[in-house]
């Protein structure tokens, strides 16, 4: 379970930094080690020395590693209270003041937040006209999201969440069976603009009204959390909303001058004008 030592984890991080320039040192160490254990097991790799060897000599494997070390949201409509609030309060409020606003979902890994948003917008029909932007760390992650495969467990959890979100409807309608496995319907993702994450590129534009950044910071140490929050808040225009996970906090980073709290329970914040 925690068979990878912090030292071994650090050596993997060092190799990746020196070989590919990607800095993973901002990951929360316990989660990173756990994830490394999963990777060794699922990729049938004996130990971290073998892993380091593969990372050093195989760029394609590095991309696979990046995909699998990243942690996604576990299921659709997690925290149904939030999704109900988004549908009934937050989005209608945004649409009162903006025409075709943009919603950005940064750092997508498994697509669950994006799928949930797509379902919500599909059910709202023409009432909610928004543009969706999703960013991913690499092409393999993007392909996985577009493939839409869900394990039975994720599907079951998603179905349970959705029943709270929309008791009169069935989430089954948004999935199709391929070779006995459930996949999120690809046609529903056609309107989504996918972008590869890049340190040089901003994620928000003048049109961005909402940034869904839920449970992304759980896997970062406080230094990286602070850096990412500052980056996002500085990119956001006045009035743009930021949503984090309900057990995440953005207080205590010295960024209070950049936002106001819209909902303390659902962790919704709005960018304010910098003084």
């Amino acid at each position: 379970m925690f068979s990878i030592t912090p030292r071994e984890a650090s050596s993997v991080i060092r190799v990746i930094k020196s070989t590919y320039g990607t800095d993973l040192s901002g990951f929360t160490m316990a989660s990173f080690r756990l994830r490394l254990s999963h990777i060794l097991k699922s990729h049938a790799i004996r130990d971290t020395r073998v892993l380091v060897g593969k990372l050093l000599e195989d760029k394609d494997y590095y991309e696979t590693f990046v995909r699998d070390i990243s942690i996604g949201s576990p299921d659709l409509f997690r925290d149904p209270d939030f999704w109900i609030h988004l549908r009934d309060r937050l989005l209608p409020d945004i649409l009162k003041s903006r025409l075709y606003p943009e919603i950005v979902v940064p750092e997508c890994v498994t697509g669950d937040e994006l799928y949930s948003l797509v379902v919500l917008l599909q059910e709202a029909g023409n009432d909610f006209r928004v543009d969706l932007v999703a960013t991913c760390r690499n092409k393999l992650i993007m392909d996985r999201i577009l493939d839409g495969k869900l394990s039975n467990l994720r599907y079951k959890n998603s179905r349970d969440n959705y029943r709270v979100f929309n008791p009169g409807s069935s989430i089954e309608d948004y999935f199709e069976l391929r070779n006995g496995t459930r996949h999120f319907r690809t046609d529903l993702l056609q309107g989504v603009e996918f972008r590869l994450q890049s340190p040089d590129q901003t994620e928000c534009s003048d049109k961005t009204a909402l940034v869904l950044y839920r449970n992304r910071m759980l896997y970062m140490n406080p230094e990286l959390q602070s850096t990412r929050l500052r980056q996002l808040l500085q990119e956001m225009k006045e009035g743009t909303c930021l949503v984090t996970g309900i057990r995440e906090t953005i207080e205590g980073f010295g960024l209070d001058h950049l936002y106001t709290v819209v909902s303390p329970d659902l962790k919704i914040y709005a960018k304010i004008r910098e003084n």
Partner: protein
Amino acid sequence: MQKSVKTKALVIGGSAGSFQVLVRMLELFRPGLPIPVFLCLHRLKQVRSGFEETLNYNASLPVREPFDKEKIGRGIVYLAPANYHMLIEKEFSIALSTEDPVNHSRPSIDLCFGSAADAYGPALLAILLSGANQDGTMGVASVKSRGGAVMIQDPDDCEISTMCESAIKLTKPDRILTVPEIIEFVSLL
């Protein structure tokens, strides 16, 4: 088993049949206990509120669901939030995670115990209570392998014995105790 004076943290795991035992334990902790207590209980994922309040009702120590990266303090009972894994970081903060369930459980006792064992080593005391699946088995083994102390509720005394039986099969605990014995023990910490 090591003396309680050396214990720097207590971690408790439980599932079906453990709630009443826990409520009683929480009543009897010494106020001002100089160590943190981590509580990992299997619970309904959809029910986010009410559980913390119920446990707090008669507890002698404050019980709270931590936020991610919260610094660990003494004399506080940290309850793993519903639908999150609760991991203890080496620099003594709490990291939450939405990773896949382990043994169908999120929070997972295995992950909570395992990470606490890593952070506290021989200074950790773990107590495993009644439950209906095998979560906790690997966690208890991690605690023992890092020199920590382990107490397991006597399977004959459990409402549902699966969890404790499974853990005992893999790891020899320091003590197997009945509920009254566990309660007496925690009141002396």
